């Protein structure tokens, strides 16, 4: 069901992770992503996994929600892993059929890519978005990118677009579900037939969805104008972003841990690709 999509939702709380400055969280997420793709040592990945689990624990996000968040990307992970297995053909050959060849290095790369995607989702999509209110997150984006405004970079506009997108995702998901059900009640068949027929079957869903989205956009724009929205100029914020001790602690810990993990690339033990 579409309702199972929990990515991009926010779970209010008071954990240390919730209390971090969102700009710091963005920075840490960025470091995390870079390191995630630099590491090439299985032991390092295992350590990283344990650390991620610890962060999840500290953030008080129920384990069930983490798993639920991972469910929708399961297929993507498998496909990526398989593609990567066939992509790298160096190393010891284990199996060969025509132009397809599975090697030790290929398998390693497949496993690494799967781990990277899973960690990426847990680290960014789950820990970051579950613990940060969407507004704070978009405020942070606006704030981090505001130095580039002078070069014409629309930091405020992008942040506002993100805010609205996050706000409307659940609404539109619900709407899609309703439209699907309504067309099913009129005998629409989405499950059988050729690819072309199935693609055509989407028209009765997509047209109403877009009509509704445009109507919502129109009404929202008027409502925003009525609430004196006039772009980012002279705008103040209810919450002022502030860094505190806990943020510096988090930065120091992350940087040290990441340095340690990256340095394992140069060590002699562990499995690597």
């Amino acid at each position, binding site marked *: 069901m579409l309702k199972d999509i929990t990515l991009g939702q926010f779970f209010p709380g008071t954990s240390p992770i919730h209390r971090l400055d969102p700009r710091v969280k963005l920075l840490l997420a960025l470091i995390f992503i870079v390191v995630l793709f630099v590491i090439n040592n299985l032991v390092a990945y295992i350590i990283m996994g344990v650390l991620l689990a610890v962060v999840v624990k500290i953030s008080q996000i129920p384990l069930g929600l983490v798993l639920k968040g991972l469910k929708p990307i399961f297929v993507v992970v498998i496909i990526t892993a398989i593609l990567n297995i066939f992509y790298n053909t160096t190393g010891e050959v284990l199996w060969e059929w025509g132009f397809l060849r599975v090697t030790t290095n290929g398998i390693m790369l497949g496993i690494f890519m799967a781990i990277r995607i899973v960690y990426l989702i847990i680290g960014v999509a789950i820990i970051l978005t579950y613990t940060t209110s969407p*507004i704070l997150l978009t405020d942070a984006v606006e704030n981090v990118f505001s130095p580039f405004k002078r070069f014409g970079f629309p930091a405020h506009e992008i942040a506002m677009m993100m805010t609205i997108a996050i706000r409307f995702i659940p609404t539109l998901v619900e709407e899609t579900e309703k439209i699907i059900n309504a067309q099913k009640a009129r005998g629409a068949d989405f499950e059988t037939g050729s690819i072309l027929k199935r693609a055509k079957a989407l028209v009765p869903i997509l047209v109403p969805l877009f009509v509704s989205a445009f109507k919502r956009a129109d009404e929202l724009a008027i409502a925003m104008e009525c609430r004196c929205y006039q772009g980012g100029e002279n705008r103040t914020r209810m919450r002022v972003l502030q860094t505190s001790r806990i943020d510096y602690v988090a930065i120091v810990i992350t940087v040290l841990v990441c340095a340690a993990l990256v340095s394992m690339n140069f060590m002699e033990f562990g499995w690597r690709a």
Partner: protein
Amino acid sequence: MKPFISFENLSFKYSEEEPRWVLENINLTIDDGSFVAVLGHNGSGKSTLAKHLNAILLPTEGKVYVDGIDTCDEEKLFDLRQRVGMVFQNPDNQIVATVVEEDVAFAPENLGVPPAEIRERVDWALEAVSMTEYREAASYHLSGGQKQRIAIAGVLAMKPKCIVLDEPTAMLDPQGRKEVMKTIRELNKNEGITIVMITHYMNEAIMADRVVVMDEGHVILDGDPYEVFSHVDELKSVGLDVPQPTELMYLLKGAGVDIEKTVLTDEECAEVLYNLLEGQR
């Protein structure tokens, strides 16, 4: 004293080519602190009238003044919009931010209010619509009535003198309708906010101090609810209802029963019937 809102010979159409006026020669004044319900069927021009109050639409002919501001005065556009808050039918399409209190903060943030004062205003606005306990909730977990109260809090945070509500309960269930109507009445009574409410529910219109009935772009009836709802035939002829007790009294009167006054509520109706039955003994 000048009235708070005045429509002076207001006429409106969407484009020059259109043959028909959507609003035609409207003259209407609304006093500060009053609670006015504007009734009419769909397409009667009632929503168009409301949209003139904060310059979403501008008059084709005539003028609209709110608190001394000419709505055509572009320099004072934000002064005007701050004074007149607008609440629309679909609460989902007015809420900008996911988290309740952050949405309520949207308008004062746009107005450049200092952070500490925004916090105060948000807390006050949520209290005024009895939604304080949901301040950290995500709006999509709320009921329709709750969402609409958040939308009201969102305009309250501008500290408006007047709130215009365009069919605020049309998409709500009876429970949500009651919540929203209660909130609106309290804002009028306790905070002295002028209320202009567009509706086609008679049970809501009777709560107002004054009812204005529109049809085909004209004001056809205007007065206190008792006065307006005494015109049962006229209301029915423009596709509107009257409350059930009012209709019963009207029918009985037509049959020759001696009934003087118009009734609106079940309470009043029972009282009149009781006296009639007692009088027979």
